[in-house]
């Protein structure tokens, strides 16, 4: 059932109305501290979700549970119709359908931008060199970095590195994209170039879950916003209402601080 590293081919598509991501009662413990305290969340296909909240609220932990970078301690997670278990094969299958962009880029320093993008398709799908190159160049063009394909990460600015990281995730042609504070480590003048690329992606119909402090971006792009505090979802709703009429006290306080 699980595609081996050499046979290309997508998994059977999930049913039309099945949520892209489903978290049901998800719990994560660090010792005695409840980083995630019973999270219930469904993300429809093509939906754009922004998760925000104070530090320590568990937002990073939440999205890292979706692609199993964190192992949950309770509850169920379902991604693209597959139940996320501890089994290595299942985890790998899900990860190949879910792309992730990290706060600190995490590019492979010993590979060029192009090679960074080519690595996963070649290893996971057995693509030939030319095929992989074409694929990688296509996505590097999408993030406007085709001219820098031969450069090593050390020679790229933070904003450029993050865009390469986005292209790298896109090369696996994932149905879902996760962003873990993608602009928090960037100098202010580079934040917009990265957000611009993410906004362009949002328009293509891919499912997105983005943890970020960029509220302007959230207002423009998100279908739904989720506010987390101390491991639980406090409030969520359509972006409009979220910012205009925050219902909970905590969200009001948080927005007041962020949008000062």
């Amino acid at each position, binding site marked *: 059932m699980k595609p081996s590293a050499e046979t290309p081919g997508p998994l059977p598509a999930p049913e039309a109305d099945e949520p892209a991501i489903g978290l049901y009662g998800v719990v994560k413990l660090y010792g005695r501290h409840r980083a995630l305290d019973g999270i219930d969340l469904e993300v429809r296909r093509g939906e754009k979700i922004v998760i925000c909240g104070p530090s320590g609220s568990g937002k990073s932990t939440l999205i890292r549970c979706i692609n199993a970078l964190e192992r949950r301690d309770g509850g169920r997670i379902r991604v693209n119709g597959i139940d996320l278990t501890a089994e290595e094969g299942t985890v*790998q299958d899900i990860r190949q359908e879910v792309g992730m962009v990290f706060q600190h880029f995490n590019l*492979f320093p*010993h590979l060029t931008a192009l090679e960074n993008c080519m690595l*996963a398709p070649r290893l996971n799908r057995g693509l030939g060199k030319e095929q992989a190159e074409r694929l990688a160049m296509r996505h590097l063009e999408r993030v406007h970095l085709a001219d820098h394909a031969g*450069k090593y990460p050390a020679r790229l600015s933070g904003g450029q590195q993050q865009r390469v990281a986005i292209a790298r995730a896109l090369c696996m042609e994932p149905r879902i994209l996760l962003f873990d504070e993608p602009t928090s480590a960037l100098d202010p003048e580079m934040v917009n170039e990265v957000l611009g690329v993410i906004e362009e992606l949002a328009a293509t119909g891919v499912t997105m879950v983005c943890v970020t402090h960029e509220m302007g971006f959230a207002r423009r792009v998100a279908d739904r916003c989720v506010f987390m505090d101390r491991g639980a979802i406090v409030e969520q709703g359509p972006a409009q209402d979220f910012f205009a009429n925050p219902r909970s006290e905590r969200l009001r306080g948080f927005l007041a601080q962020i949008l000062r």
Partner: protein
Amino acid sequence: MSALPVDLDLAWRSLPELLAGLRVTVLITVLPLMFGLALAFPICFARMAERRWQSLPAEIFVVFFRGAPLLILLYVVYYGFGQIALLREGPLWLLFGSPFGCVIVALTLNHAAYMTEVLRGSLLAVPSGIVEASEALGISRRHIFIWVKMPLAIRYGLKAYQNEVVSFVKGTAIVSVVTITDLTAVANGIFEQTYDPFTPILCAAALYWAFINLLRIGFELWGRWLARHQREEDSPRTAEAPGRFGLRRLSRLAKAML
């Protein structure tokens, strides 16, 4: 240091013998370096395993073969295993039946223990974020190790590896006690014949020094080659990039990546 009378004539005459000794030294350096490194991988994996029954024996191995002085290890193998008739005449005669075999065994085990720690340290030095990124891309653990972890571990661990290799070369000087005629043994022999301690020992020292510095230069060049991605100008996109990327067998992969 004009106080040291070096007999240049004697030095010149001893050169062939000294070089023969150097050849032996190189041999008892290179073989254990290769075998020890090969052995270090499985032991390192065991050492880094999560299950105690795997990591504990590996830990004990490392503590013993790193913590015990090399001379004692040599004695254990030569006077211990090397004297057990069963081993000498059995299938392991190649290893224990000759002084040379005993030396290789002892040196290999010692180097393997050190390399296990060097390897472990290098692998741990790979930033976890980069490993996570490769996991998030759905790359299998085996592929992550070959294509991401090892190339980076080598870069991080090169200095430590160099230090270990240099120390190792210097450590091989003891094998004369078990009748192997390495460079040190030759120097001693010449001293015993001529009663001149300075010339042979200083010549041998010079040859060791040359060998070690040759190794150092080699490592320096290797390090520079590995770090080329940090100084490299815009490399032409793909066409000229040396083919680093085939899905071929491990040895060729490793050579290409390195």
